[in-house]
């Protein structure tokens, strides 16, 4: 491990230190793109209660990446290929309507286990450095190239544009599928498109945080934002802001400390979530004690 940079607590010189090396600039840029994507798409995922599908996609990213390594293909191709394919499979096994949703989780779990098994096989076949397994699972935040940043940027832009275009009907279909369908919203098609977007977001995030830590950016900021506000617009913005904050602060701490980025990003988002939950619990306790005689 290289010698650690020392935090001077002077913002200007710390910022200069932080951006001294191109790898760190790349990491910050890639982290920013990924955080915006994960924050926005994650918000819809949490609202639609598809975190299990998101989780499965993130685990499918692992065999994708391992398979790409084995075949000598670019890692990104493995991540995006596997997640895209996984999203289509999930869309196929998940029927429309809420009744189907309960049976869906079993089918998704099956896909998940199979994906993990495949990944294990690929890693075994590769039998190269075991270090690559660790980076597949826990990310390679600090090894991101300028080319990767450009790819991420274009993917992120496309994903956000699509999300902006379908956002409102998707919100409608997510909270009130039956009435949305009656109003002419193609709920089933939207579900498939959303799963594909989710696949993109997961693949992009997995490239950086690794397959296992995707959730720190995809779920926790979104869940925290939904604890804070029930308004859709501000909630989305807040979710993105939290994901950004967690990423930037996590990268910065990791740069100045001996512990890995993945740890800091997950701990920060976890800490935020717990803090907000506690605040809400305290607040609602105060609100719940109503004046005597008030109708409930």
């Amino acid at each position: 491990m290289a010698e650690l940079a020392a935090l001077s607590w002077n913002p200007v010189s710390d910022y200069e230190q932080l951006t001294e090396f191109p790898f760190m600039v790349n990491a910050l840029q890639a982290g920013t793109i990924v955080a915006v994507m994960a924050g926005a798409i994650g918000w819809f995922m949490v609202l639609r209660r598809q975190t299990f599908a998101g989780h499965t996609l993130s685990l499918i990213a692992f065999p994708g990446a391992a398979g790409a390594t084995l075949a000598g293909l670019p890692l990104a191709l493995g991540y995006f290929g596997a997640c895209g394919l996984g999203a289509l499979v999930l869309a196929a096994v998940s029927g429309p309507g809420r009744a189907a949703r309960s049976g869906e989780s079993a089918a998704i779990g099956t896909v998940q286990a199979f994906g993990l098994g495949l990944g294990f096989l690929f890693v075994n076949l590769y039998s190269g450095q075991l270090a690559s397994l660790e980076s597949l699972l826990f990310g390679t935040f600090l090894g991101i190239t300028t080319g990767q940043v450009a790819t991420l940027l274009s993917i992120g832009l496309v994903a956000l544009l699509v999300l902006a275009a379908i956002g409102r009907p998707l919100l409608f279909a997510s909270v009130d599928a039956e009435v949305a369908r009656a109003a002419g919203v193609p709920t089933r098609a939207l579900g498939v498109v959303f799963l594909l977007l989710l696949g993109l977001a997961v693949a992009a995030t997995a490239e950086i945080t690794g397959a296992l830590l995707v959730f720190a950016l995809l779920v926790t900021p979104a869940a925290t934002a939904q604890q804070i506000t029930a308004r859709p617009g501000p909630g989305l913005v807040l979710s993105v802001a939290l994901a950004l904050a967690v990423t930037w602060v996590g990268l910065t701490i990791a740069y100045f400390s001996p512990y890995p980025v993945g740890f800091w990003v997950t701990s920060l988002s976890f800490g935020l979530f717990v803090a907000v939950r506690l605040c809400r619990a305290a607040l609602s306790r105060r609100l719940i004690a109503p004046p005597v005689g008030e109708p409930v």
Partner: protein
Amino acid sequence: MLGLLPLSAGRAAVLGEKPGAARSRIGYLPQRRSFDSGTRIRGLDMVRLGLDGARWGLPLPGALSRSDRLARERVEEMVELVGATGYASRPIGSLSGGEQQRLLIAQALVREPEILLLDEPLDSLDLSNQGAIASLVQRICESQGVTVLLVAHDVNPILGYLDRVVYFAAGRGVQGAPREVIDGPTLSRLYGAPIEVLETSDGRLVVVGTPEPPAHHHDRHDHG
């Protein structure tokens, strides 16, 4: 009526158009859907989705767009009409069944439909809420000039407000004004079970099923 299911035979026209084509002129409230406490979206947003939730693209924020301001006003007007102003900005999952139902009626009404299609609007509400929602629907029907078509198993809470009744049972139907259709012999014949129609002291009708004679039940479980 919304064109969601294909016709098995025959033809149907809704408001002079093919089913489905008239969908924007119908406000629809499906059978009881409840939002559990995890649903973190405000009642106001639910009503707003009824107005323009099916439209693609992002809305401009209110300060910039006139149509957004008009939409907000429309939503608030509807919320006030159903008497939900006090709790419309709370997450819908945290509201009671009756409160949710009021907001959902506002959602179905917000596009000024010509027909309001209510499927079991009183289902799983307590008695006082049943009465309140029934009279709310009646009030809306008159003040907004909208035709209300509702499906109900329990006819009693709405009996006083009906103009016309259609009964379906066992593949047959009876229709007419409430006083013509709702009498003991007609309903008993239709359902093939004894049903009595009583009249209360203030002239309201009440439909009750009379208890069946104790029947011999066959044990459907295998022993062993």
